[in-house]
């Protein structure tokens, strides 16, 4: 197991997180079409970074960097990683980042249609999921974790709860992305999507709250599991507060002459924290799958046999 591969995978995951923040800034500054051409910016590699060009071209530069890092990671995995499925994950990450880049180009070329913008924001989270997973799979803690037996007492297993939470968070992220891209900063958010996103927040809070609490209660001595559970719960709490703040500041935005702080900073923080909640839940889910083995109660059956 290469320590270098893990560190590099971690670098790609962190870079992807910053890319999500850069993308959120593009949307919040209404800079999506500040550069009307693609893949070059005004026909140049380095245009003058004035006005909203700073955000749009800055996003492109970070995206290009993440793309290059992902190419290196995919090759690095082929060379140093013994597990075939992890190698394959490297290629999947590369495929996703290429598709993501093309979707970014489509948002510019098609002048920000909602479906492309929402797909671009959604794929960003799926790519983040992939890079975080690679970082987890290449870590020492993953490699040396001891699988343990977890007796299924006919309740819902932590595995199921984690997967359900993860899926619900992804749906919530998609809803949030669609909500953000369905109205400009000077327009009011559509009520239906807003209600759906708020409802999603309640559902995710319940799901992740129950999941993390179950892990904390049943496996309180397993730091391997309790740490991501505590981190996920803490981030979820922060995310709920940021969500309320984002709603309040966004409601005032249509009356402003331009996108302004605190709307921009709070909304970007909300997007970033959403990605972190997702990452923490990915970590929790993968670790639960790693160490908890579900077995049906078979003692009685064996005894009678």
């Amino acid at each position, binding site marked *: 197991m290469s320590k270098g591969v893990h560190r590099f995978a971690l670098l790609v995951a962190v870079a992807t997180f910053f890319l999500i923040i850069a993308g959120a800034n593009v949307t919040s*500054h*209404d*800079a*999506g*079409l*500040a*550069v*009307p*051409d*693609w893949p070059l910016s*005004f026909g140049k590699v380095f245009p*003058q970074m*004035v*006005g*909203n*060009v*700073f955000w749009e071209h800055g996003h492109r530069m970070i995206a290009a960097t993440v793309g290059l890092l992902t190419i290196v990671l995919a090759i690095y995995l082929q060379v140093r990683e013994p597990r075939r499925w992890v190698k394959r994950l490297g290629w999947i990450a590369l*495929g996703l980042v*290429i*598709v993501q880049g*093309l*979707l970014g*180009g*489509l948002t510019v*070329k*098609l*002048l920000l249609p909602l479906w492309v913008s929402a797909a671009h924001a959604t794929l960003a989270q799926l790519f983040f999921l992939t890079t975080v997973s690679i970082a987890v799979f290449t870590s020492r803690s993953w490699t040396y974790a001891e699988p343990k037996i977890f007796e299924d007492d006919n309740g819902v297993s932590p595995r199921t709860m984690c997967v359900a939470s993860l899926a619900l968070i992804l749906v919530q992220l998609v809803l949030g992305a669609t909500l953000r891209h369905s109205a400009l*900063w*000077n*327009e*009011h958010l559509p009520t239906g999507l807003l209600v759906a996103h708020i409802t999603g927040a309640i559902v995710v809070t319940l799901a992740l709250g129950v999941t993390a609490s179950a892990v904390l209660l049943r496996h309180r001595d397993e730091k391997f599991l309790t740490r991501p559970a505590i981190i996920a719960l803490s981030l979820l709490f922060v995310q709920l507060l940021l969500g309320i703040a984002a709603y309040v500041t966004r409601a005032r935005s*249509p*009356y*402003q*002459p*331009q*996108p*302004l702080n605190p709307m921009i900073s709070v909304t970007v923080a909300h997007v970033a924290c959403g990605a972190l909640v997702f990452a923490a839940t990915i970590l929790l889910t993968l670790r639960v799958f790693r160490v908890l083995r579900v077995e049906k109660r078979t003692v009685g059956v064996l005894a009678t046999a």
Partner: protein
Amino acid sequence: MLSKRAGLWLGLIATLGLLSLGSSCGNKTETNENAGSSTEKVKYSKGDEGTISGTIAYTGAAPENAKIDTSADAQCTSKSPNLTAETWIVKDGKLANAFVYIKDGTIDGKKVDEYGWNAPTGAATLDQNGCHYKPHVLGVMAKQEINITNSDPTTHNIHFLQGKNPDWNQSQPNGAAPLKHQLNTPEQMAQVKCNQHPWMKAFIGVMRHPFFAVSDETGKFTISGVPPGKYTVVAWHEAATGPGTEKTMEVTVPAKGSATADFSFGAAAGLQGQPSSLPLIAVEFPMLGKH
């Protein structure tokens, strides 16, 4: 040989790539819906045309325009150090930048839409000056050329938002040749914004006829060359948020005569608008359509 999964990925990437390239190569075809073919319609040329004129008042205390933060572009700060929004241009209780137009009416027993008017051969001008669009509110006829100029020492981005007319997004560096554009479909009001300087916006009334005007700084407007008839006149203002606010009234233009249509906006205005020769028939309603 490629595995099925690898083939699927390659197919997806190739499709998206082709879509990206295709979208960059293809020019959008502007729709010509409702533009009206002036050559097929009846022309009015009796020589007895009159005018509609009036004043746009703002009742109550004029709202203060918000200060704009231009720090993202030093050239804007340098040229317009105290830039403010242009939502409310109110002087002595009179409101500028209201777009007044004939919405409907009858001329010699025929609907206004049954007549045809040629678009002016001269272009309208939309300038970018001091990191604002000049004028802030513009009226043009459908298919009339719009000359877009940049008088600022910075690059601007002109984005006609999709409404009844398609999106159009171009950048224009300082010193670049004027851009030409035309809107083929009547629309009240088409919106223009700058994606580099998000406070910059303009509104364009795209009409099938030439009977429109924009109130000046004294709140006055005049629509000339109006054939005698009964008309529904609309005064539109962008309002603090959303697609704007409209007020309507009925006026009658006599042959070679004039009609007056005074409108009032503002919190204290209520439903106002006073034609000089007719009892008040004015209805206020927010424009629900997204422009």
